[in-house]
Protein backbone atom coordinates (compact mmCIF):
# COMPACT_ATOMS: atom_id res chain seq x y z
CA UNK A 1 0.00 0.00 0.00
CA UNK A 2 1.26 3.45 -0.90
CA UNK A 3 2.40 5.56 2.09
CA UNK A 4 -0.01 8.36 1.18
CA UNK A 5 -2.90 5.90 1.30
CA UNK A 6 -1.72 4.64 4.69
CA UNK A 7 -1.55 8.20 6.07
CA UNK A 8 -5.04 8.93 4.76
CA UNK A 9 -6.26 5.79 6.52
CA UNK A 10 -4.60 6.87 9.78
CA UNK A 11 -6.47 10.18 9.56
CA UNK A 12 -9.77 8.40 8.86
CA UNK A 13 -9.23 6.00 11.75
CA UNK A 14 -8.29 8.80 14.13
CA UNK A 15 -11.42 10.72 13.16
CA UNK A 16 -13.59 7.59 13.05
CA UNK A 17 -12.98 6.41 16.61
CA UNK A 18 -14.83 9.54 17.75
CA UNK A 19 -16.64 10.32 14.54
CA UNK A 20 -19.25 12.65 15.97
CA UNK A 21 -16.62 15.08 17.12
CA UNK A 22 -14.06 16.88 14.97
CA UNK A 23 -10.36 17.09 15.71
CA UNK A 24 -10.02 20.65 17.06
CA UNK A 25 -7.20 21.85 14.75
CA UNK A 26 -4.39 20.86 12.41
CA UNK A 27 -1.99 21.25 15.33
CA UNK A 28 -4.01 18.68 17.26
CA UNK A 29 -3.96 16.33 14.27
CA UNK A 30 -0.17 16.65 13.98
CA UNK A 31 0.47 16.06 17.68
CA UNK A 32 -2.04 13.23 18.05
CA UNK A 33 -0.47 11.29 15.20
CA UNK A 34 3.01 12.16 16.49
CA UNK A 35 2.18 10.61 19.87
CA UNK A 36 0.94 7.50 18.05
CA UNK A 37 4.15 7.38 16.03
CA UNK A 38 6.06 7.27 19.32
CA UNK A 39 3.98 4.34 20.53
CA UNK A 40 3.89 2.38 17.30
CA UNK A 41 6.94 1.79 15.14
CA UNK A 42 4.79 1.15 12.07
CA UNK A 43 3.20 4.59 12.30
CA UNK A 44 6.65 6.05 12.97
CA UNK A 45 8.04 4.43 9.84
CA UNK A 46 5.35 5.99 7.68
CA UNK A 47 5.05 9.38 9.32
CA UNK A 48 8.37 11.17 9.76
CA UNK A 49 8.27 14.09 12.14
CA UNK A 50 10.84 16.85 12.18
CA UNK A 51 11.76 19.75 14.42
CA UNK A 52 9.41 22.66 14.02
CA UNK A 53 8.36 25.91 15.66
CA UNK A 54 5.23 24.17 16.92
CA UNK A 55 7.08 21.02 18.02
CA UNK A 56 7.13 17.77 16.02
CA UNK A 57 5.78 18.31 12.53
CA UNK A 58 5.19 16.18 9.44
CA UNK A 59 5.02 18.05 6.12
CA UNK A 60 3.62 14.92 4.48
CA UNK A 61 0.79 14.74 6.99
CA UNK A 62 -0.04 18.37 6.31
CA UNK A 63 -0.14 17.74 2.53
CA UNK A 64 -2.17 14.57 2.81
CA UNK A 65 -4.68 16.06 5.26
CA UNK A 66 -5.23 19.06 2.96
CA UNK A 67 -5.09 17.27 -0.40
CA UNK A 68 -6.03 13.60 -0.01
CA UNK A 69 -5.59 11.47 -3.12
CA UNK A 70 -7.13 8.09 -2.31
CA UNK A 71 -10.11 9.13 -0.18
CA UNK A 72 -10.75 12.64 -1.36
CA UNK A 73 -14.15 13.20 0.29
CA UNK A 74 -13.50 11.35 3.54
CA UNK A 75 -12.67 14.34 5.72
CA UNK A 76 -12.85 18.09 5.51
CA UNK A 77 -11.25 21.01 7.25
CA UNK A 78 -13.78 23.72 8.01
CA UNK A 79 -12.98 27.44 8.14
CA UNK A 80 -12.86 27.15 11.94
CA UNK A 81 -9.82 24.88 11.40
CA UNK A 82 -11.65 21.84 12.80
CA UNK A 83 -11.29 18.56 10.91
CA UNK A 84 -14.45 16.50 10.39
CA UNK A 85 -15.11 13.01 9.11
CA UNK A 86 -17.73 13.06 6.33
CA UNK A 87 -20.44 10.42 5.89
CA UNK A 88 -18.32 8.92 3.12
CA UNK A 89 -15.40 8.92 5.55
CA UNK A 90 -17.55 7.06 8.07
CA UNK A 91 -18.29 4.39 5.44
CA UNK A 92 -14.59 4.01 4.70
CA UNK A 93 -13.90 3.81 8.45
CA UNK A 94 -16.45 0.98 8.76
CA UNK A 95 -14.92 -0.83 5.78
CA UNK A 96 -11.46 -0.70 7.39
CA UNK A 97 -12.93 -1.98 10.67
CA UNK A 98 -14.67 -4.85 8.88
CA UNK A 99 -11.49 -5.75 7.08
CA UNK A 100 -9.14 -5.52 10.09
CA UNK A 101 -11.48 -5.81 13.07
CA UNK A 102 -10.60 -9.36 14.11
CA UNK A 103 -6.92 -8.64 14.59
CA UNK A 104 -6.06 -8.20 18.29
CA UNK A 105 -3.26 -5.78 17.46
CA UNK A 106 -5.63 -3.70 15.38
CA UNK A 107 -8.16 -3.62 18.23
CA UNK A 108 -5.38 -2.38 20.50
CA UNK A 109 -4.45 0.23 17.92
CA UNK A 110 -8.06 1.46 17.82
CA UNK A 111 -8.05 1.74 21.62
CA UNK A 112 -4.88 3.81 21.46
CA UNK A 113 -6.43 6.10 18.84
CA UNK A 114 -9.52 6.51 21.00
CA UNK A 115 -7.49 7.29 24.08
CA UNK A 116 -5.48 9.90 22.19
CA UNK A 117 -8.67 11.61 20.99
CA UNK A 118 -10.23 11.53 24.47
CA UNK A 119 -7.24 13.18 26.08
CA UNK A 120 -5.71 15.52 23.52
CA UNK A 121 -8.91 16.91 21.96
CA UNK A 122 -9.86 18.58 25.21
CA UNK A 123 -6.65 20.62 25.34
CA UNK A 124 -6.55 24.18 24.04
CA UNK A 125 -3.82 24.87 21.49
CA UNK A 126 -1.70 26.65 24.13
CA UNK A 127 -2.07 23.76 26.58
CA UNK A 128 -1.20 21.24 23.89
CA UNK A 129 1.83 23.19 22.69
CA UNK A 130 3.18 23.74 26.20
CA UNK A 131 3.01 20.01 27.00
CA UNK A 132 4.60 19.17 23.65
CA UNK A 133 7.38 21.77 24.04
CA UNK A 134 8.23 20.48 27.50
CA UNK A 135 7.96 16.76 26.69
CA UNK A 136 9.58 16.79 23.25
CA UNK A 137 12.16 19.52 23.54
CA UNK A 138 14.27 17.75 20.88
CA UNK A 139 11.56 18.35 18.29
CA UNK A 140 11.16 22.02 19.01
CA UNK A 141 12.78 24.91 17.19
CA UNK A 142 12.82 28.00 19.37
CA UNK A 143 10.23 30.49 18.20
CA UNK A 144 8.45 33.53 19.52
CA UNK A 145 5.49 31.23 20.32
CA UNK A 146 7.56 28.73 22.29
CA UNK A 147 9.38 31.52 24.13
CA UNK A 148 6.05 33.10 25.04
CA UNK A 149 4.49 29.87 26.29
CA UNK A 150 7.60 28.89 28.22
CA UNK A 151 7.84 32.20 30.08
CA UNK A 152 7.38 31.51 33.79
CA UNK A 153 4.12 33.44 34.22
CA UNK A 154 2.45 32.01 31.13
CA UNK A 155 3.69 28.48 31.79
CA UNK A 156 2.46 28.57 35.40
CA UNK A 157 -0.94 29.86 34.32
CA UNK A 158 -1.38 27.10 31.74
CA UNK A 159 -0.07 24.48 34.16
CA UNK A 160 -2.61 25.60 36.76
CA UNK A 161 -5.42 25.30 34.20
CA UNK A 162 -4.26 21.83 33.20
CA UNK A 163 -4.25 20.72 36.83
CA UNK A 164 -7.66 22.27 37.45
CA UNK A 165 -9.05 20.39 34.43
CA UNK A 166 -7.54 17.22 35.87
CA UNK A 167 -5.66 16.37 32.68
CA UNK A 168 -2.17 16.29 34.23
CA UNK A 169 -1.00 14.68 37.43
CA UNK A 170 -0.01 16.74 40.44
CA UNK A 171 3.61 15.66 39.98
CA UNK A 172 3.54 16.79 36.34
CA UNK A 173 2.17 20.11 37.51
CA UNK A 174 5.11 20.53 39.87
CA UNK A 175 7.49 19.56 37.08
CA UNK A 176 5.94 22.17 34.77
CA UNK A 177 6.03 24.91 37.36
CA UNK A 178 9.43 24.28 38.92
CA UNK A 179 11.38 23.19 35.82
Amino acid at each position, binding site marked *: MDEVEVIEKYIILLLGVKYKEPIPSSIHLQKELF*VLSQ*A*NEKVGNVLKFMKHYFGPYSAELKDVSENPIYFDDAFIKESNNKIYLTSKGKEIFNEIINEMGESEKFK*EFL*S*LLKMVRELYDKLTTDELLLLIYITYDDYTLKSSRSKELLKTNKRNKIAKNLLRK*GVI*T*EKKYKELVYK
Partner: protein
Amino acid sequence: MHNIISDSSFYICFLGDINEPDTLEKILRFDSFTFIIGSVIEKELNVQKNSNGLLDKFLNQFDYYEYGEIIKPFFSLHEIQKGETETIVISYIMENKKTNYITIIDDKSPREYVRKNFPKIFDNLTGTIGFLEKCYLKWAIFKKRECINTLELINQSKFRIGEEIINEVIYRIKG
Protein backbone atom coordinates in the same frame (compact mmCIF):
# COMPACT_ATOMS: atom_id res chain seq x y z
CA MET B 1 -9.85 -15.00 35.14
CA HIS B 2 -8.40 -11.59 35.90
CA ASN B 3 -5.73 -9.72 34.00
CA ILE B 4 -3.58 -7.92 36.55
CA ILE B 5 -1.85 -4.78 35.36
CA SER B 6 0.45 -3.21 37.89
CA ASP B 7 3.11 -0.54 38.01
CA SER B 8 6.59 -1.56 39.15
CA SER B 9 6.09 -0.67 42.84
CA PHE B 10 3.96 -3.78 43.41
CA TYR B 11 6.70 -6.14 42.21
CA ILE B 12 9.50 -4.15 43.86
CA CYS B 13 7.63 -4.27 47.15
CA PHE B 14 8.16 -8.06 47.29
CA LEU B 15 11.48 -8.32 45.47
CA GLY B 16 13.20 -5.34 47.03
CA ASP B 17 11.40 -3.65 49.90
CA ILE B 18 10.50 -6.75 51.93
CA ASN B 19 12.68 -9.25 50.07
CA GLU B 20 9.98 -11.93 49.89
CA PRO B 21 10.07 -13.31 46.34
CA ASP B 22 8.28 -16.48 47.50
CA THR B 23 5.24 -14.45 48.52
CA LEU B 24 5.21 -12.81 45.12
CA GLU B 25 5.54 -16.19 43.43
CA LYS B 26 2.51 -17.46 45.32
CA ILE B 27 0.45 -14.60 43.93
CA LEU B 28 1.86 -14.91 40.41
CA ARG B 29 1.14 -18.65 40.38
CA PHE B 30 -2.52 -18.23 41.24
CA ASP B 31 -4.61 -19.85 38.50
CA SER B 32 -7.10 -17.04 38.08
CA PHE B 33 -4.50 -14.37 37.42
CA THR B 34 -2.66 -13.34 34.28
CA PHE B 35 -0.07 -10.67 35.04
CA ILE B 36 0.64 -8.23 32.23
CA ILE B 37 3.54 -5.81 31.90
CA GLY B 38 4.82 -3.45 29.21
CA SER B 39 8.38 -2.69 28.20
CA VAL B 40 9.03 0.12 30.73
CA ILE B 41 8.16 -2.05 33.72
CA GLU B 42 10.09 -4.96 32.26
CA LYS B 43 13.23 -2.79 32.15
CA GLU B 44 12.58 -1.56 35.67
CA LEU B 45 12.19 -5.11 36.98
CA ASN B 46 15.16 -6.55 35.13
CA VAL B 47 17.50 -4.76 37.51
CA GLN B 48 15.93 -6.52 40.52
CA LYS B 49 18.48 -9.03 41.78
CA ASN B 50 16.33 -11.69 43.41
CA SER B 51 13.63 -12.27 40.85
CA ASN B 52 15.18 -15.72 40.02
CA GLY B 53 13.47 -15.96 36.67
CA LEU B 54 10.09 -15.38 38.32
CA LEU B 55 9.24 -12.54 36.05
CA ASP B 56 10.11 -14.39 32.84
CA LYS B 57 8.06 -17.34 34.01
CA PHE B 58 4.86 -15.62 35.08
CA LEU B 59 4.59 -12.23 33.46
CA ASN B 60 2.98 -11.76 30.07
CA GLN B 61 4.63 -9.04 28.17
CA PHE B 62 2.70 -6.55 26.10
CA ASP B 63 5.42 -5.33 23.82
CA TYR B 64 3.86 -4.64 20.46
CA TYR B 65 3.44 -0.95 21.28
CA GLU B 66 5.22 1.49 23.55
CA TYR B 67 1.98 1.96 25.46
CA GLY B 68 3.23 4.54 27.93
CA GLU B 69 4.08 6.99 25.13
CA ILE B 70 0.39 7.70 24.53
CA ILE B 71 -0.09 9.66 27.76
CA LYS B 72 3.52 10.62 28.47
CA PRO B 73 3.00 14.42 28.20
CA PHE B 74 0.54 14.36 31.13
CA PHE B 75 2.89 12.66 33.62
CA SER B 76 6.12 13.52 35.43
CA LEU B 77 9.35 11.82 34.43
CA HIS B 78 9.42 9.80 37.65
CA GLU B 79 5.88 8.54 37.08
CA ILE B 80 6.74 7.51 33.53
CA GLN B 81 9.82 5.61 34.71
CA LYS B 82 7.77 3.74 37.31
CA GLY B 83 5.48 2.54 34.56
CA GLU B 84 2.38 4.44 35.66
CA THR B 85 1.58 5.59 32.10
CA GLU B 86 2.06 2.12 30.65
CA THR B 87 -0.16 0.60 33.35
CA ILE B 88 -2.97 3.05 32.64
CA VAL B 89 -2.83 2.62 28.85
CA ILE B 90 -2.84 -1.19 29.05
CA SER B 91 -5.77 -0.96 31.50
CA TYR B 92 -7.59 1.27 29.00
CA ILE B 93 -7.11 -1.41 26.33
CA MET B 94 -8.44 -4.08 28.71
CA GLU B 95 -11.44 -1.89 29.45
CA ASN B 96 -12.14 -1.51 25.72
CA LYS B 97 -11.79 -5.24 25.18
CA LYS B 98 -14.30 -5.74 28.00
CA THR B 99 -12.06 -8.22 29.78
CA ASN B 100 -11.81 -8.67 33.54
CA TYR B 101 -8.87 -6.76 34.88
CA ILE B 102 -7.45 -5.24 38.03
CA THR B 103 -5.11 -2.26 37.96
CA ILE B 104 -2.61 -1.81 40.78
CA ILE B 105 -1.19 1.69 41.30
CA ASP B 106 -0.01 2.93 44.68
CA ASP B 107 0.89 6.59 44.20
CA LYS B 108 -1.76 9.18 44.90
CA SER B 109 -0.99 11.45 41.93
CA PRO B 110 -1.61 8.90 39.12
CA ARG B 111 -4.54 7.38 41.03
CA GLU B 112 -6.16 10.79 41.10
CA TYR B 113 -5.49 11.17 37.37
CA VAL B 114 -7.26 7.87 36.70
CA ARG B 115 -10.21 8.90 38.88
CA LYS B 116 -10.68 12.13 36.93
CA ASN B 117 -10.06 10.88 33.40
CA PHE B 118 -10.96 7.18 33.40
CA PRO B 119 -13.67 6.45 35.97
CA LYS B 120 -14.21 2.94 34.58
CA ILE B 121 -10.56 2.06 35.16
CA PHE B 122 -10.83 3.66 38.61
CA ASP B 123 -13.57 1.14 39.45
CA ASN B 124 -10.98 -1.61 38.90
CA LEU B 125 -8.12 0.20 40.61
CA THR B 126 -6.51 -0.88 43.84
CA GLY B 127 -3.16 -0.52 45.61
CA THR B 128 -0.66 -3.19 46.67
CA ILE B 129 -2.13 -3.37 50.18
CA GLY B 130 -5.73 -3.54 48.94
CA PHE B 131 -4.74 -6.24 46.49
CA LEU B 132 -3.05 -8.27 49.24
CA GLU B 133 -6.20 -8.01 51.32
CA LYS B 134 -8.23 -9.44 48.43
CA CYS B 135 -5.62 -12.17 47.93
CA TYR B 136 -6.56 -13.38 51.40
CA LEU B 137 -10.25 -12.50 51.75
CA LYS B 138 -11.47 -13.10 48.20
CA TRP B 139 -9.11 -15.61 46.64
CA ALA B 140 -7.66 -17.35 49.72
CA ILE B 141 -4.16 -17.33 48.26
CA PHE B 142 -2.70 -16.88 51.76
CA LYS B 143 -3.49 -18.12 55.21
CA LYS B 144 -4.49 -15.40 57.65
CA ARG B 145 -1.16 -15.42 59.55
CA GLU B 146 0.83 -15.37 56.31
CA CYS B 147 -1.03 -12.34 55.02
CA ILE B 148 -0.68 -10.44 58.30
CA ASN B 149 3.05 -11.20 58.43
CA THR B 150 3.48 -9.86 54.91
CA LEU B 151 1.59 -6.69 55.76
CA GLU B 152 3.68 -6.20 58.90
CA LEU B 153 6.86 -6.63 56.88
CA ILE B 154 5.62 -4.01 54.43
CA ASN B 155 4.82 -1.71 57.34
CA GLN B 156 8.42 -1.91 58.53
CA SER B 157 9.92 -1.54 55.05
CA LYS B 158 10.58 1.54 52.93
CA PHE B 159 7.47 0.84 50.84
CA ARG B 160 5.56 4.12 50.92
CA ILE B 161 2.21 3.59 52.56
CA GLY B 162 0.53 5.09 55.62
CA GLU B 163 0.73 2.92 58.73
CA GLU B 164 -2.96 3.51 59.45
CA ILE B 165 -3.94 2.00 56.08
CA ILE B 166 -2.00 -1.18 56.82
CA ASN B 167 -3.43 -1.36 60.35
CA GLU B 168 -6.97 -1.01 59.01
CA VAL B 169 -6.39 -3.88 56.58
CA ILE B 170 -4.84 -6.06 59.30
CA TYR B 171 -7.85 -5.28 61.50
CA ARG B 172 -10.24 -6.39 58.75
CA ILE B 173 -8.24 -9.54 58.07
CA LYS B 174 -8.21 -10.47 61.74
CA GLY B 175 -11.99 -10.22 61.48
